[in-house]
């Protein structure tokens, strides 16, 4: 049992674990929508698109999370604006904004002296550098996102499943879609600390994809996804501590292993089960 407790002697490790689990749960729940609505590209783009916000916040010595949050909201609304009324297809709008924002972000960061180190923290996360303030902010944002999801659970389900019914029931579909984009943006920003820009899409998609294979209904899928996300973060961080590898990678690889096990062996529709 000592090996379980040993990392917890360090305050930074405790904060890191808490942050990682919070992020794991939050990403896994929003990731459920990403998986069932086919928004993986959007999630990935969103993660990269917040780079300029982070860079500007860094240059101005502001809070990186706040910078990322502002950038992601701008991007989410921008995608909604460009693709409104079918002027430009949504994935095209995403592609344009995503590449532009990434280019701007790299350009800004390249002007910073300690370029290489900072960029790697932004790209791959730095969960062990999470401060108490960051932790509170993560918890607060996470709580807000989950609250909005809980309030709009029925409505999100209808607009995701059947847009014709949504229109028949006169749901404000456009507003709900934008709200969902906003929640996704906040989630991606929060995930920045643990897995970084480059890997945040994995935290969104991988636990939810595994949960999709294990469940038949939306709410159980979300809960299983959250559990997988939390376990990935916990196990990943311990692996990172003992094997001395980057925490973001360790978390994502753990989630991937869980997904593979589910994919091969799950009782509902596992690849190996079906053939035997």
């Amino acid at each position, binding site marked *: 049992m000592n090996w379980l407790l040993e990392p917890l002697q360090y305050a930074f490790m405790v904060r890191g674990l808490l942050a990682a689990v919070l992020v794991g749960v939050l990403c896994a729940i929003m990731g459920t929508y990403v998986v*069932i609505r086919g928004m993986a590209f959007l999630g990935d783009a969103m993660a990269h698109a917040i780079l300029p916000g982070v860079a500007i916040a860094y240059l101005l010595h502001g809070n990186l999370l706040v910078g990322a949050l502002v950038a992601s909201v701008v991007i989410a609304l921008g995608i909604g604006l460009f693709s409104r009324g079918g002027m430009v297809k949504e994935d095209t709008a995403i592609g344009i904004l995503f590449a532009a924002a990434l280019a701007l972000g790299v350009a800004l960061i390249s002007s910073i002296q300690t370029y290489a180190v900072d960029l790697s923290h932004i790209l791959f996360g730095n969960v062990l550098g999470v401060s108490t303030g960051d932790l509170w902010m993560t918890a607060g944002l996470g709580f807000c996102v989950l609250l909005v999801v809980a*309030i*709009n659970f*029925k*409505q999100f*389900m*209808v607009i*995701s*499943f*059947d*847009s*014709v*019914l949504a*229109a*028949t*029931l*006169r749901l404000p579909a456009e507003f709900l879609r934008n709200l969902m984009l906003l929640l996704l943006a906040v989630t991606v920003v929060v995930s920045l600390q643990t897995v970084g820009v480059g890997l945040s899409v994995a935290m969104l998609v991988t636990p939810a994809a595994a949960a*999709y294979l294990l*469940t*038949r*209904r*939306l709410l159980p*899928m979300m809960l299983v996804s959250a559990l997988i996300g939390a376990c990935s973060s916990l196990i990943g961080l311990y692996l990172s501590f003992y094997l001395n590898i980057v925490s973001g990678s360790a978390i994502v690889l753990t989630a991937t292993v869980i997904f593979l096990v589910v994919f091969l062996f799950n009782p509902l529709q596992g690849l190996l089960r079906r053939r035997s």
Partner: protein
Amino acid sequence: MEKISPQEPARLEIESISVGYNGAPVLQDVTFQIPHGARVAVVGPNGAGKSTLFKALVGLLPLRSGQIFIHEMPLGHHLDCVAYVPQRSEVDWRFPVTVADVVMMGRYGQMRWLQTPGRADREVVRTSMLQMGITELANRSIRDLSGGQQQRVFLARALAQQPHIFLMDEPFTGVDSTTQEATLQLLDHLRQQNVTVLISTHDLTLAASRFDSILLLNKRLLAYGTPQEVLTPEYLRQAFGTHVLKLADGAVLVDDCCPPEDDHVHGSSREAE
């Protein structure tokens, strides 16, 4: 143009509506009234605007001009009283919901934003599934359904909405006999409930035998009245053009199996008589 004389005040009034997508309007200047509880077949060639009419009635397509009144109120006033079952539901059939979940969505219109389904809602869902013969599928994932079962799930959901007006787009096209039978039983059930029913169909025999009135449509309203009044060779020729063949015994054959997408040529061929 004949009109049926309403027994009681018309509950669905369409006043010279024009509806279209991006280009030219599909429906032009269509006016009719349907009394409460009537059963109307909407008939016309492909591209005549049958689906467009239904989409306009649920607010999926905006009106270019004209007005729609339901219970003498403009469209959108009664949020939950029109149910619509499209011909092919363009939903993701791998979505993680069970059959009962989908039928329960029909109740959402009558629940408040934060409300969770109550006993009354579950009872409506149960009877709706029973009516459509899908009770034993209730806990199955929709991933596992056949085409006919999918159609019955959507009919059950529309039924669970407890609508005053029930729109079905081609419910008899390309479904198995179980589903066809269940749909016919649904029609009788809706008659008892005094629900107004509009169905688009290619099946003129069915339209003549099962419906109070027929609405013959080809971008414009050509005729509206009882089957005897509407299913005349003249009207059918106006609607279907040269695809109509009058047989020796007075029967009328409509060859409309694979018409072109754009049907406006039919309208101009009516002088061919």
